[in-house]
């Protein structure tokens, strides 16, 4: 996946001008950059005047981003037929399109990695035993909902409310793009079906 995401490449180029960021050298060479916190911090500092609204909608609202995602998704579906479900590949490609700048995308990528390892090694999952019931004081109504929302967004179970709201906004935009891309892809593939059956017969 060495192709650059068009929606984020201008931002990468913008960060090249900062001299003391060594990791940007890799961005210059067009390699896959995976410096999530750096990128996020740089983005925030460069666009401090804008709100969180614009860059999230720009990132996931572009039709270019949707096309890139659908191409990647089709590619991944072609490769992995029986190993994983379609849902997992879709999430994986979505997280890859996010380039790991957000918490949920990193959590998705890590979880897939962990699950693959677990499948190979066939060991008991080493995840910490969650004391969900015990130790929790009585939360307010809002607190309960916040916890539920944290459970929905992957990897944000324990984050505080402001960061959780940011992650939710990005996650919602990403999900909407995913739905759009997958509907388009399914429409195309379904249109192939009748002619193929006729051809193979």
């Amino acid at each position, binding site marked *: 996946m060495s192709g650059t995401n068009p929606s984020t490449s201008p931002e990468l180029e913008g960060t090249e001008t900062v001299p003391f960021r060594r990791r940007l050298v890799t961005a210059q060479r067009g390699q896959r950059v995976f410096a999530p916190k750096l990128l996020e911090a740089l983005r925030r500092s460069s666009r401090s005047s804008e*709100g969180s*609204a614009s860059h999230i909608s720009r990132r996931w609202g572009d039709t*270019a981003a949707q096309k890139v995602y659908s191409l990647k998704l089709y590619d991944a579906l072609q490769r992995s037929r029986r190993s994983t479900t379609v849902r997992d590949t879709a999430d994986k490609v979505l997280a890859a399109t996010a380039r790991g700048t957000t918490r949920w995308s990193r959590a998705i990528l890590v979880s897939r990695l962990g699950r693959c390892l677990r499948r190979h090694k066939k060991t008991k999952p080493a995840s910490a035993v969650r004391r969900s019931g015990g130790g929790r004081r009585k939360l307010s109504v809002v607190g309960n909902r916040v916890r539920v929302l944290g459970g*929905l967004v992957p990897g944000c179970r324990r984050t505080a409310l402001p960061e959780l*709201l940011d992650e939710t906004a990005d996650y919602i935009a990403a*999900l909407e793009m995913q739905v759009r891309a997958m509907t388009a892809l399914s429409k195309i593939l379904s*249109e192939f079906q009748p002619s193929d059956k006729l*051809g193979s017969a």
Partner: protein
Amino acid sequence: MLEGLVSPENLSLSSMDMNVLERLKWLQQQQQQQVVSQSSDNSPELLQILQFHESNNDELLQSTFSHFQMLGSCFGPSPNMGFGPSHEAMDGCISRTSSFQMVPVDTMGVMLKNSEENRTISSKNKRKSEVKRREEEKTEKKIKVEAETESNMKGKSSMSNNTEASSDTSKETSKGASEIQKLDYIHVRSRRGQATDRHSLAERARREKISKKMKYLQDIVPGCKKVTGQAGMLDEIINYVQSLQTQVEFLSMKLAVLDSELELAVEDLYVKQDQTVIIQKLLIIFFLFCYEFQLQAYFTNLPVVNASKPSIMVDVPLFPLDQQGSLDLSVINLSQTTSTEAPSASWETQSRSLFNTSSLGFHY
């Protein structure tokens, strides 16, 4: 981000408070721009505002707050300065305020709100807004002066130094000056029923951040505008995320079914019709070469000649079940469109053209 701050503030506060908030932002702007102006009353209090701006200390915050209390106390009649144009300037300057001072702006705005309310309660003036604007005028002009002096001094100066300097430059209202000079400790007067310690101020800033983000989410999530209150909005957001996730699952199941059908058909085709596959590949290679020549003829300035190959390679797996005729048609369409289009042969645009020329209408 500050514009987003200003608008909810404007909605929630009264008109007087809005002036105060704008004034504060304008003060910051003026300090950064360091404009010279004439000095007038109440300079010592303004110095404290500048001290606050310089150091962003919480103690100075409280000192400025106390300053505003004194400003309210020395309320007397003042000449009507032309506050009209300056107000417009304030509006124009708001958008340019920096963001690093956002948190103190919030707290300062809140404190100003508190001070304003206190003032209204204590003074009970009828023409409140006008008088306050005049006060703002005075304070603004003083801050410009003090900005210069502060920049000359370069750094935090103690209160006593400031009082000396300000007493040199101040003209009248000995009441205010004397009150400043008496001050050695920072006294803060709080709003009715609200604390002004550091923790509550920080909490208030945090709450405003959260409310701003909730407002943005409210715009994103459909059907969230009718519900008021954080709990209801969170409920709607949770429902929306769950619905999106179920949609994705449903679509993934659909794609899995389609994929399996495709796979079976592809295998079928490859098993039965080997010859057609060979001929297809030959055709691909043939069209590849003439396509390359076409590309070189038309797009000499573009280094993306290789893009033609991957596009056609994608062509084959994307349309694996095409008959020969349709495959030729797609390739021919591709060459036709690229010959007529402007040179834009990036990977994405080529794939886009592929999608466009296909009989399916890959619409977004």
